[in-house]
Every structure is written in C-alpha cells, then in structure tokens.
C-alpha cells in the first residue's frame, strides 16, 4: 500500500484525451508499465503465480500421465507397446470427444449428465439411416445425427435457461429419458448393425504411413506458423509478449509430440508375421479436428469469451449486455452435438449400436477426463485440450487395469478415486483463488 501511494503521488493524472477514443484506442501503450518482451525468468514467475491462482496449465497432468504410464509398464510390459498404445488411443477417443462437449457446459458452471445416452442415440439415428431398404447417403448419416443431438441439447438448455431449472436435474432426466428412448427404438436386447465403409474407416482404419507423416508434419508446421505469427505480431506491437525462446520451445514440444505419435502409430503392430498393421488411426485426426474446432470456438470467438464470462460472473456478463440465456443454451447445444460426433465414432467402432451402450459410464468418464485435464467444475476455467489430455489419463487407467486383468469393479473404483482426487485439487485451487 505504501508503495502504491508513493507511485501515485509522483505521477500526475495524465490527460484524459486518450481515454475517450473516438477512433478506437491508439496503440500508444509504450508508457504502460509492462509492455514489451518479458524475460524468461519473469515468465517462469508469472507461470508459478498462475498455477497458484488455479490456472495450473498442463504440466501437472502430463506428469501424472507419465507416472501412470510408468506404473502400468512396470506391472505389465505390454502397456507401452505400439499395439496397446494405439488401442488406448482408439478407446480414449470416445472419452475425449465426449469430454470436449462436456467442457462447454463446465465452463459456464453447469453440468450435463445426459451426453452419454445422447451419444448413444446419435449412433442409433446414424444406424437407422444406414440400414433398411433405402439407406441414406453416408454424409447425411453423419450430419443428421449431429444436428439431432444438438437439437436435444438445445431443448435441454432451453428448459434450463428459460424456465430456470437446475442443469443437474434436467440432464439427469435426460440421462434416464434418452436411455429409455434408445431401448424403445432398439427393442429388448436389440442391435442395429452398421456396415458402412466410411463409418468403419472413421472408427477403425489407419492412414498409410506416408500420409500419416505428411499430415502430422502439415499440422505441426501450421501450428508453428500460427504461433510464430501471433507472438511475433505481439512483440512488434510492443504488447506484453513471450520471449522468442518460449515460442520456439512450444513449437518444439508440439513437434516432438507429433513425431512420437507418428512413430508409435507407424510401427508395425501386427502380431502375426504375414500381415502388417500400421499407420495413424483416422480417429486420431477426428479428435484433433474437433480439438481445433473447440479451441477455436472457446478462444477466438465472442461466443467462447461469453461462455467464460458467464462461468466467472453471470451477473457481470449480463450487465455487459451479454445475452446469457442464449449463450448458455448454446453451450448445452454444442455439448450434445459433440456427443453426436462421439456417438458416430462409437457406433463405427462397434460396427453397430446395441442396448449395451453404458451412457452412465461414458458421461462419468468424460466428466472425469475434463476435470482431470484441468477444467473446473466451478465454471469459468477450462480448455479444450484438457479433454484430450484427461481423456488419455482415463483411457490409460481403463486400459492398464484391463491389461492387469483386474475386474471392471476395481477399474470403477480406481477411476472414481482419480476423479475424486482431481475434483479435490480443483476445489482447493478454487478456494484459494476466491479467497484472495
């Protein structure tokens, strides 16, 4: 406080002129205390401050993932084989896609318990469209389920925002109701088989080795170019900017992750000598595409900005002129639509939909993935990438415990404990953040 006072006294109030910008602000911010490129040390310090205030970044969960992988590898040497890791990716893709959807509702401080069965319903709609005497074109069987699931989310979201019902109850009703609808459509113990090349490929096929490398290289180069341009522009305009070293470090990390993914997936993982199975599964790129889309919506558009604002302080968002009911409804819509995408992949993986779909487990794993990845249950904090990293953790646990031939029961217990741990960390950082 004493320091503040001294500074203020020496500094006469600057002329008001630039603060009433008729033409928008001039970038004469050079006088602002913290403009310019920041040194690495300062960056590290502000990172620590960020972690303490609850925005923990990815480092803790990545470390956790490495610990989990090491533990399973020690107990079963099959865990880190190419075959198993690709399996794990394919299993995890469903959790990741669902978690991407769930993040939209977690960010606004709500919950969606129905998305697992909504996904199942999406798979059923696709199956119904592709079977029968007059199957629909494949692209229609992709678009229509996604839109239908989005409509379900819009309906549930409208009940929540227009009537003011709690999202927990409305989506719990959805959890029961859509499960019932599924059972009605499928009949007792019924199945809809899907024999469609595109569905099968999206869920089960691999890219050729060359195409895989080219696509990964293209994605890394695209990321590097965008980051380089973004950070470069900030450095040039005299805004607070990360040092060049950090930009390069980020690019290197992403490039290494890409190379590792391609190396693992392009290893021949066939267990018999005469056939070879190799290449990056298509579904990896489906997940990456959805990750990019969700990141784009959350960080680059007003819609995303308003979702965070609502999660942080709904009343403040309302006073700022944000149509909070609309934005919240759209969050539920996007969540369910993403459930539709997951349902299509799920149906493709199983080559059909049956009454065995466990929407309860799916949604709990998805929420666990999002929270483990770093998204807060209290709203306002979360990133799309949390869904992918958290999905990896959940899939690793499920997969590793399967390898150890532990029962499903103990898998549930462990996943439950991990979720509890993640939520506890979330609650503790939240309490610290709101106490300051």
């Amino acid at each position: 406080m004493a320091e503040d006072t001294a500074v203020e006294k020496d500094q006469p109030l600057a002329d008001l002129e630039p603060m009433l910008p008729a033409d928008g602000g001039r970038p004469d911010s050079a006088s602002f205390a913290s403009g310019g490129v920041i040194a690495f040390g300062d960056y590290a310090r502000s990172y620590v401050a960020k972690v303490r205030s609850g925005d923990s970044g990815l480092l803790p969960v990545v470390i956790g993932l490495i610990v989990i992988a090491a533990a399973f590898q020690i107990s079963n040497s099959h865990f880190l084989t190419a075959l198993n890791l690709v399996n794990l990716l394919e299993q995890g893709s469903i959790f990741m896609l669902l978690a991407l959807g769930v993040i939209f509702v977690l960010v606004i401080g709500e919950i969606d318990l129905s998305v697992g069965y909504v996904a199942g319903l999406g798979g059923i709609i696709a199956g119904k469209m592709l079977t029968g005497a007059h199957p629909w074109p494949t692209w229609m069987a992709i678009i229509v389920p996604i839109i239908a699931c989005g409509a379900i989310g819009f309906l549930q979201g409208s009940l929540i925002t227009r009537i003011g019902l709690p999202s927990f109850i409305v989506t719990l009703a959805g959890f029961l109701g859509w499960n019932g609808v599924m059972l009605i459509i499928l009949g007792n113990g019924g199945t809809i088989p899907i024999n469609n090349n595109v569905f099968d490929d999206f869920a089960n096929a691999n890219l050729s080795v060359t195409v895989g490398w080219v696509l990964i290289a293209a994605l890394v180069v695209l990321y590097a170019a965008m980051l380089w341009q973004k950070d470069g522009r900030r450095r040039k305009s005299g805004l607070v900017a990360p040092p060049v070293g950090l930009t390069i470090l980020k690019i290197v990390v992403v490039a290494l992750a890409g190379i590792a993914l391609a190396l693992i997936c392009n290893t021949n993982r066939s267990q018999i000598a005469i056939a070879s199975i190799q290449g990056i599964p298509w579904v990896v790129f489906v997940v990456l595409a959805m990750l990019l889309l969700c990141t784009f919506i959350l960080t680059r558009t007003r819609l995303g900005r308003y979702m965070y604002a609502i999660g942080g302080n709904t009343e403040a968002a309302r006073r700022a002129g944000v149509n909070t009911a609309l934005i919240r409804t759209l969050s539920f819509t996007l969540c369910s639509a993403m459930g539709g995408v997951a349902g299509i992949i799920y149906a493709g993986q199983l080559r059909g939909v049956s009454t065995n779909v466990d929407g309860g487990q799916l949604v709990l794993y998805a929420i666990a993935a999002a929270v483990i990845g770093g998204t807060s249950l209290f709203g306002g904090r979360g990133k799309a990438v949390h869904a992918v990293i958290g999905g990896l953790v959940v899939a690793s646990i499920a997969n590793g415990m399967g390898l150890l031939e532990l029962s499903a029961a103990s898998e549930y217990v462990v996943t439950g404990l991990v979720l509890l741990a993640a939520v506890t960390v979330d609650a503790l950082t939240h309490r610290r953040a709101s106490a300051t």
Partner: protein
Amino acid sequence: MDGIESEQVVAADAQASGGGGAGSRTPLLELRKMSKQFGPVQALSEIDLKVYPGEVTAVVGDNGAGKSVTLKTISGIHPPDGGEILWQGKPVHIRTPKDASALGIETVYQDLALCGNLDVVQNMFLGRERTRNHLLDENSMESAAAATLSSLSVTTLRSVRQSVASLSGGQRQAVAVAKAVMWNSKLVIMDEPTAALGVAQTAMVLELTRRLASRGLGVIFVSHNFNDVFEVADQIAVLYLGRLVASLPAKGLDRQVVVDYVTSGASSRNGSQLAHADGA
C-alpha cells in the same frame, strides 16, 4: 484538505464547458416520478432527479435508501415500474444494459461486476469486443486497454493479461472505472467508487471524476463519504427511504444540512434550500 481550491478551479471549468444559462439548460438525464418495487418492498417512490452535462451530481443517503436501485434503473439492470426517464429532453425506455450503453450511459457498479476469471483486457471489453473478420482482435483490445489504464495513471498493475481475481481491491476498482470511461460515454455513473480505495487511489478517482465533468460529461456519484462528496459534487441529491428528499447545489452548502436530510429526511436548518434548488 486542499480540495477547496481545486474545486473552485474545476467548477469554473465546468461552467465554461457546460454552456447555456442555468435556467434554460436541458438536463442530460431527467427522472420523473420514477418508482421501483421489489415484491412488497417499495425501493423507490416517485423519484425526480435532474443530471446536467458538465456537472457531478452526488447521490447520498443511508444504507438501503435506494441509491443503488436508482442507478440500476438508469443503467437498465432493474427497469422502473413507473415514471419516466428523459434523455436529453426526450423520453426513453432503458430496459437492458445494452440500451443504456447505446445512449452513452456507463456504470461502475458498487459490486464491481467484473469476471474474476477473465483478464483485465477481457473485462474492459466485455460485451463490446473488437473483432477482425468476426474473430476477436486481442492485440488491438490490449493496446487500447493499456492506453486507457496508463492515461488514468494506473501503474500498479503487473500486466493487463492478469486475471482480475489476482488484483487487489483498489486495482479492481481502477479497472472498473477505466472500463466505464473507455467508451464515448455521455453519462458516467459511479456507485461508491472510492469505497475500497486507499488515500492515493481515492484522490485519483475524485480527480478523474472532476475531469470527466469538466469535459462536459454528466457524472452521477454515489458515496457515503461526505469529504468525497463535497470535494467533487456540483449538486447533491439526498435519498431517504426510497424518496428524494432534497436536491441542493453543493456550493456553500452546510454539511450539517445534508446530514439532517440523510438521517431524518428533513432539515430545519435551511428550509428554503429545496425550493431554491428545484428552480436551478
């Protein structure tokens, strides 16, 4: 207090920029018989208030007198149940915060209305983000926010990309004030803007308030601190249990008169003040 000297200087300023004779000026904002009810609670009953451009109108009153509710009806948070709002002489309906900001009314709320999880720039532009090709234009917003903050001598922020939750109370207040004055506003409403501030920041906000008025903006200033009120106000309006009981020119006003109105809704010391003020 060295406030007296500077007050006179600025008051002269306001006269110069306000324009027009005292009798013929159109108020920037006029409330006529405005009422607001919350269930059984009659929060406001038939408020009449005039706010002139180039003047600071202070609104005082005890806790629960209806100050915040008055401001919220003007800024579209709680649209009034009855009565009329005139903006530059013409009747208007302010139903949403957007309506208010479209007219040029900006508010610094008592409960700040900032999103703790968003950073300073995101808060200052909330609801009015700049876009390029429909995408958020972060750099342009960051430059403008930084320029506004440094023009307000807010130099204690480490970074404009800091989340608001990590700021001190005074810093948050500064951000809220900067947010309100960044737009081409004609009327700036401040609900207890100095309540959480240290001595230096209070002086800064008061000086800022005077500067806004001297540029021809109307300012409504709510405070419990009579030192602050007498330092900045041209007009002092007193609310008592949801009624406007006095509207007095601040110059030469006896502080004790205001205290009487605030505490009891009436003053025996100078009965002619109210009538006199209404003519202004």
